[in-house]
């Protein structure tokens, strides 16, 4: 994969502020034909902002963009599309209630055309899909697709419109290793056809494997550009964070008493197929058990069950020998700490101030309320302490939680869940979308909890994380859970195989 000829994109002096925040400052970049450029940077470094400007979602305060030698009018996604730029957003922009076909077709036909050429469109979608290995069912409703399939639809959408430059904002954050490698295969095909790709990721291994060149942003500035061949993981990490990153080390631990025990657990779904079926699992104090698996195989049901959001229809779920209640409040009273997958949708309430989010799980506790009245002073003091201990970076604890970046929000949720030293911790994708500095911080805290004897159940699709943290690993497939075997008995390949087997069954 080598770049040839004149640049397809040329960014000059791009600057963008959001109020007091300088999101981008004087960024100049070029992208060559057939090149894969990776954008790296900590959370909030300005990567998404930069590509949003490129695509016309935002209008830059300064600077200009040329695409294929022509100046690109600012702030106009239609113009970007016309110039052959396609974008796959960090958060999917698909309409759940519409079909795949409709999501792809939207905006591709003249608005006032009195009919829609669906048959021709279908043929073209099949063509494109076949050429790049992007199998999807055009008639399916998007709501029913898996995350990986949605990702493919997003890419198809861009390709269908004839994109020559494809921008992918953290495309692998939500994908399993299998899905990720399928995506990379597709990217290779694209580059072979002469497309250029800008690609944002926090996973350095991936970046090194896929891209030709890396651009590192820090605090909105372009701090370095490197050819992949001439750099290393360690150098990139240091460039991003501005200092060296130390990954936490997992000390040996001695498993304690049995805490959580599942026997023949079943959770019914909407259809005939149960979401969980005959699940057996044991987690002891002082150990981390990881559940790996392709998303959509029942991890969500397991998490819901253990977070008190749904009840088992058969089997037993026991905590310290007593049945586990299906009620979040009761779980909290028993000392279960929970870290949800979706920190903005479920973990926090964006409209409420940070301090109210911090005490939300303990709103009835006499520590924060007396005779129905809130003890605001105590709540604020508690929050300050949480923020300081977890290194949560924010303006003030009075600001609405939605203003926090994803990483900082995650640290807040983590602090809240770990407060009071829970004996059982359910952690779902705890480092999803975080930069390596933040990942290190999260892992450190989870390992600390293990060290003091807590039982941890880690539900994650990120195999790096699974290997970094877990004492024992079990694979979930089709609503059934395999045996939890010690981490050392697994290799990346064997784990991938077990998960891929699941996928095969599903297909």
């Amino acid at each position: 994969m080598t770049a040839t000829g004149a640049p397809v994109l040329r960014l000059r002096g791009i600057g963008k502020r959001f109020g007091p925040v300088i999101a981008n400052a004087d960024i100049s970049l070029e992208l060559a034909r057939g090149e894969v450029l990776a954008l790296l940077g900590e959370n909030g470094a300005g990567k998404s902002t930069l590509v949003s400007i490129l695509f016309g979602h935002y209008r830059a305060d300064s600077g200009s963009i040329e695409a294929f030698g022509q100046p690109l009018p600012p702030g106009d996604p239609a113009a970007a599309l016309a110039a052959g730029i396609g974008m796959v957003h960090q958060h999917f922009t698909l309409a759940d209630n519409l079909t795949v076909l409709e999501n792809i077709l939207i905006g591709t036909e003249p608005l006032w055309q009195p009919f829609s050429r669906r048959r021709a469109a279908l043929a073209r979608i099949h063509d494109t899909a076949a050429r790049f290995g992007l199998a999807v069912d055009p008639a399916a409703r998007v709501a029913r697709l898996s995350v990986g399939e949605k990702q493919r639809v997003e890419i198809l959408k861009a390709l269908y419109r004839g994109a020559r430059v494809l921008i992918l904002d953290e495309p692998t954050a939500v994908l399993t290793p299998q899905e990720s490698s399928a995506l990379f295969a597709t990217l290779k095909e694209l580059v072979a056809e002469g497309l250029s790709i800008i690609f944002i990721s926090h996973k350095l291994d991936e970046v090194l494997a896929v891209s030709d060149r890396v651009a590192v942003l820090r605090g909105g500035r372009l701090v370095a550009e490197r050819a992949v061949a001439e750099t290393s993981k360690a150098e990139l990490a240091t460039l991003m964070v501005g200092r060296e990153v130390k990954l936490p080390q997992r000390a040996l631990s001695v498993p304690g008493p049995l805490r959580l025990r599942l026997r023949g657990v079943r959770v019914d779904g909407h259809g005939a197929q149960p979401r969980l079926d005959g699940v057996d699992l044991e987690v002891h104090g002082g150990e981390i058990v990881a559940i790996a698996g392709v998303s959509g195989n029942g991890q969500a049901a397991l998490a819901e069950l253990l977070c008190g959001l749904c009840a088992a229809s058969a089997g037993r779920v026991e905590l310290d020998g007593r049945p586990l209640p299906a009620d979040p409040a009761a779980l909290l009273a028993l000392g279960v700490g929970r870290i949800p997958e979706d920190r903005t949708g479920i973990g926090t309430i964006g409209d409420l101030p940070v301090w109210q989010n911090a005490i939300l799980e303990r709103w009835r506790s006499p520590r924060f309320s007396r005779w129905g009245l809130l003890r605001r002073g105590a709540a604020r003091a508690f929050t300050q302490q949480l923020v300081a201990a977890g290194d949560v970076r924010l303006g003030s604890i009075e600001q609405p939680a939605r203003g926090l970046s994803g990483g900082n929000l995650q640290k807040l949720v983590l602090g809240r869940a770990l407060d009071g030293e829970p004996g059982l911790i359910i952690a779902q994708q705890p480092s999803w979308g975080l930069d390596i500095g933040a990942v290190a911080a999260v892992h450190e805290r989870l390992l600390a909890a293990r060290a003091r004897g807590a039982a941890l159940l880690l539900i994650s699709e990120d195999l790096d994380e699974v290997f970094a943290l877990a004492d024992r690993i079990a694979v979930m497939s089709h609503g059934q859970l395999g045996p939890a075997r010690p981490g050392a008995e697994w290799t990346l390949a064997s784990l991938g195989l077990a998960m891929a087997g699941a996928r095969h069954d599903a297909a």
Partner: protein
Amino acid sequence: MWIELLGWLGQPDYWVAVLRIATPLIFGTLGVLLCERAGVLNLGIEGIMVIGAFTGWLAVHAGAGLWTGVLIAALCGAAFGALHALLTVLLGLSQHVSGLGVTLLGISLSSYAYRLSFPQVSTPPTIVPFAPMDGLGIPVLAQQTPLTLLALLAVPLLAYLLQRTPLGLALRMVGESPASAEGQGLSVLGLRCGAVIAGSALMGVAGSFLTLSAFNAFYFNMVNGRGWICVALVVFAGWRPGKALLGALLFAFCDTLQLRLQQGGHAAVPYQVYLMLPYLLSILALVVMARRAQYPQALMQPYRRGER
């Protein structure tokens, strides 16, 4: 009583009445549906219908043709729709409040204008309304005015527009996921404004049916809550034009039945119970349909670019 009921259902007259009562509801419901499919709740309908009823009638009274009257009602409805669009779509203000404000404005402004234009009347001035389409061979339809035919035609037309054309897809998309629409180069604000304005034009026509077809004069309070019924019917219909027609007909069916039951000498039950019937049935239907209904995901969510 049941025999009597069957007797009524056998009469074409019964169905003539059903269709006549349903017509303004059909126009109004389609109008609301169009707005909501694009993501905008339009509680201005009650006022916009009054505006349509007033301006359409006023135009005809001043000498314009009936169809010109309908057109003017549509345009004035559209103008108030534009106001609602300005407030809710462009400025992102609360759709509830803006809608109620537009309703308040529509009603009070038409009352004020009517009183200034006709200060000294003792009986309301009348016009010659649309005549039934006697020439048409079809039994029940022949006793309706052309506006009813238009309403019936508007249903498949709107269904086709929404489901089968690029414009319809774009409208649905801005109601489902405005961010994706914009990501595909469409103007979310433009589409939403267009939908609100067009939907409001339909509401204006709904109003004009009352003064130009169902009746021949304008009165204060002419619309009398019919607009709110349309808002309910759209939910009932699960945002589908075909079911909206069904809902409007069902509502009109109850109303027609109610009028007859009252006169049947079944006086043991207070007449208010009959009047409640359509509302109660609507709620019941909502309960039955609720699980299956698919809300436009972005309904009532203002869209501002580059904000989260």
